[in-house]
């Protein structure tokens, strides 16, 4: 019980250092742009790929499992859209990103710690926590809504492909279902949730990387811990946010 509380305390203290006034705005902005590319743009490929296939699979599964003469044909499209909008493109996508981006952040900062690059920054008088972590948090939070949009679109295209190429269902029914009872707020819910998740992924992974002590084994452990912890926190906050936003 003591260890999680100690970690929470250390995490909060680190965040206190992260959100302090930057020494040189120009340098932070440069880092911020780099992080947007590294964490956001470089994740577009995997987001599109996974979302495309998951969209297609959701469509096929729903078609196969709820097919009934009593069920309207547009239900497949409607359900696919709701799953993509409400859970997959925000929460599940962020769980996947916790693996890709989170481990990247933890191992990068952890390696900087063990190779004394963080000490070098501190000796120069640079607030290393703020310089290394703040651009990552802001960069990921800036890019995550775009990744959510890409994910939704790729999922919908995947669903359409099952209609166009596999002939599993009629594309017109799918299109009608996708547009049926559309609630714009759900898109905003996805964005709001993803912003929280982006903060969790970047800050928790950075915390584990920044507090590494030892060598390469410790960096590997920090990388694993960061993915596990941010995934658990994403799931837990998903529960709370869904209740708050939809309840």
């Amino acid at each position: 019980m003591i260890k999680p509380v100690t970690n929470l305390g250390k995490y909060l203290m680190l965040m206190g250092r992260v959100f302090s006034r930057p020494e040189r705005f120009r340098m932070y902005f440069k880092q911020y742009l780099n992080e947007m590319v590294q964490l956001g743009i470089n994740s577009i490929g995997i987001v599109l790929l996974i979302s495309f296939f998951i969209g297609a699979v959701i469509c096929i599964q729903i078609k196969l499992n709820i097919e009934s003469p009593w069920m309207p044909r547009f239900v497949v499209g409607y359900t696919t859209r709701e799953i993509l909008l409400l859970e997959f493109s925000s929460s599940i996508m962020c769980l996947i990103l916790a693996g890709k981006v989170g481990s990247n952040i933890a191992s990068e900062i952890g390696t900087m710690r063990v190779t004394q690059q963080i000490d070098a920054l501190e000796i120069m008088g640079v607030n290393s926590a703020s310089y290394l972590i703040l651009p990552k948090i802001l960069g990921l939070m800036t890019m995550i809504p775009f990744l959510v949009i890409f994910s939704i679109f790729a999922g919908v295209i995947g669903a359409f492909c099952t209609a166009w190429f596999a002939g599993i269902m009629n594309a017109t029914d799918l299109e009608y279902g996708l547009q049926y009872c559309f609630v714009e707020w759900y898109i905003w819910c996805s964005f709001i949730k993803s912003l929280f998740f982006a903060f969790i992924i970047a800050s928790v992974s950075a915390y584990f990387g920044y507090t590494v002590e030892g060598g390469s084994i410790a960096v590997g452990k920090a990388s694993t811990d960061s993915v596990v912890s941010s995934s658990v926190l994403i799931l837990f906050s998903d529960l709370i946010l869904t209740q708050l936003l939809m309840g």
Partner: protein
Amino acid sequence: MIQLNSICKSFEGRTVLEDINFLFDNGKTNLIIGQSGSGKTVLMKCIVGLLTPECGEILYDGRNLLDMGKREKKALRREMGMIFQSAALFDSLSVLENVMFPLDMFSNDTYRDRVKRAQFCLDRVNLIDAQSKYPGEISGGMQKRVAIARAIALQPKYLFCDEPNSGLDPKTSLVIDDLIHDITKEYNMTTIINTHDMNSVMGIGESILYIYQGHKEWEGTKDEVFNATNERLNNFIFASDLLQKVKKEENSKARKV
């Protein structure tokens, strides 16, 4: 100059440094020597402020590091340059960008002036041709020289070197030692070098502090170290067969004279 007054430090009840007093003069290459685990690195970390000692004073030209607030500490850090054991260059930046980093962060000069200054520092360490390379593309010795160039970019008053020769061949070690020595004279800096390399001790040890199990065992210069009577120091210095032979030859020559 940097003055240490009664520095002590312990970790979880285990004393690592005990009552260390020493004066590191400016314009001199000051060496901290000692066996692995003797507390050299902890002392260096205390001096630069990466660790806080439990007692004592660390005076930078009369200003006590341990009494300083955050702002004062930050201002002092801009007067420091440090060369780490692993060089600690930023992997994602080129050699020129590494040297420019402290200038970009703290200097108000124009971009052109910052580039000029960085190139001047790289030229000083004979690495101007490698400016567009990345740390992963250059040798260990070159990385150390880039680290020296980065450390002097802001013309610091205090230079700290943590085992600058580790992992280098003897010839490259001499180049690094000479460079540090020359730069110290050029900028009239207070330079502290943490080492257990005997070539450095004999070559550039203008002032030497020998630490044994966390306390000051001996202090002197490179000329005094050779004839010192301290048994622990002699065991440390003359651990290698080569140096033992040299000492014996020197002693026999002295007897003949």
